[in-house]
């Protein structure tokens, strides 16, 4: 029985490796390289124990705790403790994303494309495709865990000892595998790839938010999140291994459930029912813009919800910022208190930058959908109708721009509503302007994407590298003491950090002109090139 269900699993596993080896290698090299680069950078940036203690002190506040986690060993803030505190939480999310995207591709995407049916028609077992994906992910996450562990240990940095390093790697591998299993389960529940990825990312986001809320307010709550579990290893400080065992046990349970559901359902079907649809198109679905919106409606709703929750969470911790900082004596040394600027405002400015970058993700997705439609060969039919290229690209760009306005507004409103409640004498308006001030920067990102779609449609993925770089500069720019010319390469660097900085009309105007110019070039390229499908 068993061998029947999993027949040919090794052939299929090797096939997955062969098919995705490049993508997988890129993920692993990226995650390992990123981790090691940061580990190597820390000793240069924070040479003495005193400097590290200063940093630790500045990190103990609800905003940072919500962002990266509680942090252990803050009284002896070694390089190891720094890594586990500032990097590990972030890396678990990246590892989670890697597993979600890869497993969704191997399972539901292949099924949706009819490939699973073809493989099942060959003498391979009913569970072989999912089994092969799980086997590959187990191997991949193990490789990643060992590579991160040995890599960190081999840097020879004091306090990055062997056990701690291996545990650090194990945390990343275990959480990765956990989300591989979660995705396999979601692939059973939903009928589409988008649904699978959406649901899995919702679980990942939920795990992050529960951990964030728990770390700030209630320790027990954090233990309801798998990210809370793995950060509870207190890596490099106490090196508890049992949370890894717990995570792997939970992973196994979820995987078994996914396998079970896979055996009792039809190929192509999901467990969430799909309701019968409309016989005719609504008044709305009558233009390329209506179509673009309709196709991304649920994604937009999902992102809006996520952003509201995140903004409210951040807003709720703002009230405690001031109290925390009053306790720390040498705080004034570290963050030179500006005249008439509260610490709350300073953190608000940082949070707004982070929110703006997060909001850029759905905005980019909205315009990249145009490229996705081409790749899925659905544009040809539309271009055989009297629809011009300008109208088509314009529709997707307009939708992306409107989404960015809407989401920045919602984010400012959500954080502000919460902020007004928890901060004395706070007003709503500054929250909204501090959020909307990022609009020109987001539009520059959209324009660059339009340029890529117009001229280099095969390389639109580059925009994510650019956004990742922007995130690094905004988030770590000060921590890594990056030079000005480097941080200046991202539009986000040119946005005044309101409410601390004044609104700068010139920089906004220049960015809008840059966006219009680049965007126009993108349209020009799109008009001139072949549409491949």
């Amino acid at each position: 029985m068993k061998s029947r269900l999993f027949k040919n699993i090794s052939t299929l596993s090797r096939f997955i490796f062969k098919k995705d080896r490049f993508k997988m290698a890129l993920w692993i090299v990226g995650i390992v390289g990123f981790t090691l680069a940061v580990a190597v950078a820390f000793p240069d940036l924070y040479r003495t124990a005193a400097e590290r203690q200063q940093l630790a002190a500045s990190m103990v506040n609800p905003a940072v705790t919500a962002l990266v986690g509680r942090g252990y060993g803050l009284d002896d803030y070694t390089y190891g403790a720094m890594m586990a505190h500032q990097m590990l939480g972030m890396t678990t999310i990246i590892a989670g994303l890697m597993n979600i995207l890869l497993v969704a591709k191997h399972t539901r995407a292949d099924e949706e494309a009819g490939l699973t049916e073809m493989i099942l028609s060959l003498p391979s077992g009913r569970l072989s495709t999912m089994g092969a994906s799980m086997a590959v992910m187990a191997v991949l996450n193990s490789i990643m865990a060992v590579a991160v562990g040995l890599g960190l240990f081999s840097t020879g940095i004091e306090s990055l000892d062997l056990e701690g390093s291996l545990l650090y790697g194990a945390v990343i591998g275990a959480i990765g595998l956990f989300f591989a299993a979660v995705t396999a389960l979601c692939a059973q529940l939903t009928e589409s790839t988008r649904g699978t990825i959406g649901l899995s990312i919702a679980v990942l986001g939920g795990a992050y938010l529960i951990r964030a809320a728990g770390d700030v307010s209630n320790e027990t709550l954090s233990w309801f999140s798998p990210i809370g579990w793995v950060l509870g290893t207190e890596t490099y400080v106490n090196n508890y291994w049992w949370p890894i065992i717990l995570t792997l046990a939970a992973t196994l349970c979820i995987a078994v459930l996914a396998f079970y559901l896979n055996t009792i359902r039809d190929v192509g079907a999901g467990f969430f029912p799909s309701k019968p649809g409309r016989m005719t198109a609504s008044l709305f679905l009558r233009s390329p813009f209506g179509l673009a919106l309709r196709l991304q409606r649920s994604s937009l709703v999902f992102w809006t919800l996520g952003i509201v929750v995140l903004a409210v969470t951040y807003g709720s911790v703002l009230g405690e910022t001031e109290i925390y900082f009053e306790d720390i004596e040498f705080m004034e040394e570290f963050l030179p208190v500006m005249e008439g600027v509260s610490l709350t405002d300073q953190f608000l400015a940082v949070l707004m930058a982070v929110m703006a970058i997060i909001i850029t993700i759905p905005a980019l997705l909205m315009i990249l959908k145009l490229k996705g439609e081409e790749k899925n060969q659905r544009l040809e039919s539309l271009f055989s109708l009297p629809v011009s290229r300008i109208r088509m690209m314009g529709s997707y760009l307009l939708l992306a721009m409107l989404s960015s306005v809407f989401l920045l507004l919602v984010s400012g409103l959500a954080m502000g509503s919460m902020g007004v409640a928890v901060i004395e004498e706070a007003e709503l308006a500054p929250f909204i302007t501090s959020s909307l001030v990022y609009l020109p920067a987001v539009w520059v990102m959209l324009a660059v994407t339009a340029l890529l779609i117009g001229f280099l449609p095969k390389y639109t993925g580059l925009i994510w590298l650019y956004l990742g770089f922007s995130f690094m500069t905004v988030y770590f720019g000060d921590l890594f003491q990056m030079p000005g010319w480097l941080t200046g390469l991202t539009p986000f660097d040119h946005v005044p950090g309101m409410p601390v900085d004044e609104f700068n009309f010139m920089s906004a105007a220049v960015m809008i002109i840059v966006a219009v110019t680049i965007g126009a070039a993108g349209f020009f390229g799109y008009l001139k090139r072949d549409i491949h499908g």
Partner: protein
Amino acid sequence: MSVISAKGLTKNFGKFKALNGVNLEVDKGEVYGFIGPNGAGKSTTIRVLLGVLKATEGKAEIFGMDAWSEAVEIHKRIAYVPGDVNLWPNLTGGEVIDLFVKLRGGSQRRKREELIDRFKLDPSKKCRTYSKGNRQKVALVAAFSSEADLYILDEPTSGLDPLMERVFQECVKEAKNEGKSILLSSHILSEVERLCDKVGIIREGKMIESGTLEELRHLTRTQLHVETREPSPGLVKIPGVHNLQKNGRAATFQVDSEKLEDVISYLSSYGVLKLESAPPKLEDLFMRHYKGENSGPVGEGG
């Protein structure tokens, strides 16, 4: 007046030459069969005509307008059914039909309902659940329920069952009767024979034959089976006779259509007992073109 006029179309994908000087002429009210095996360049030609791909060289005009630069204007009057119909998995068939019809402008509610009925399509189902044939039906309903002057159909029946294929053929005939022009790419030869006035054959990016069916029939061979009272030894020497198989006084062979007269007059002197003939088939012409890379032009015996 020609509706489609393409001259010397060449299309390179990198180093690969997908089209190599394709000429194509479709007149008003004509059904043009565009045939060729997989990968010959039919879809590429059609995409150039639609202004989706830009020709590397050559000129394509539809309704006298440039296919690339005046695409939007042209598309108000054409309806297209792609070879590989890809639809949005989370829209229903009904929604897609309405979207297409709306974007083209001018809706015909009654025609839409009638066609949905004739093609037996359930428009309330999500496209993700449709088979290839059903996706093709969606595109066909959308195409035939709009008021177009030119229909461009790229292997539209490759996923349809025989019953639906017949419905499709009726639709084409109705459109033709209304004076519409149709470019029908296909590799189903019986379909082309039944529907088309003119045929063009493409191979490896080159048009190797084109003309009316009658013209092309001259170039095809008739299959003959004869039994004569006396043996007919000279048969093998008559030019235009191919693949001769003799079994005593019975002979089976193919003969070039224009040499049929010579053969019959030769045979008549040996006392014909039995004569069976199979009509010239487009298929034979097609097969002769595609059997070997090196098969020469039609007419030179093989």
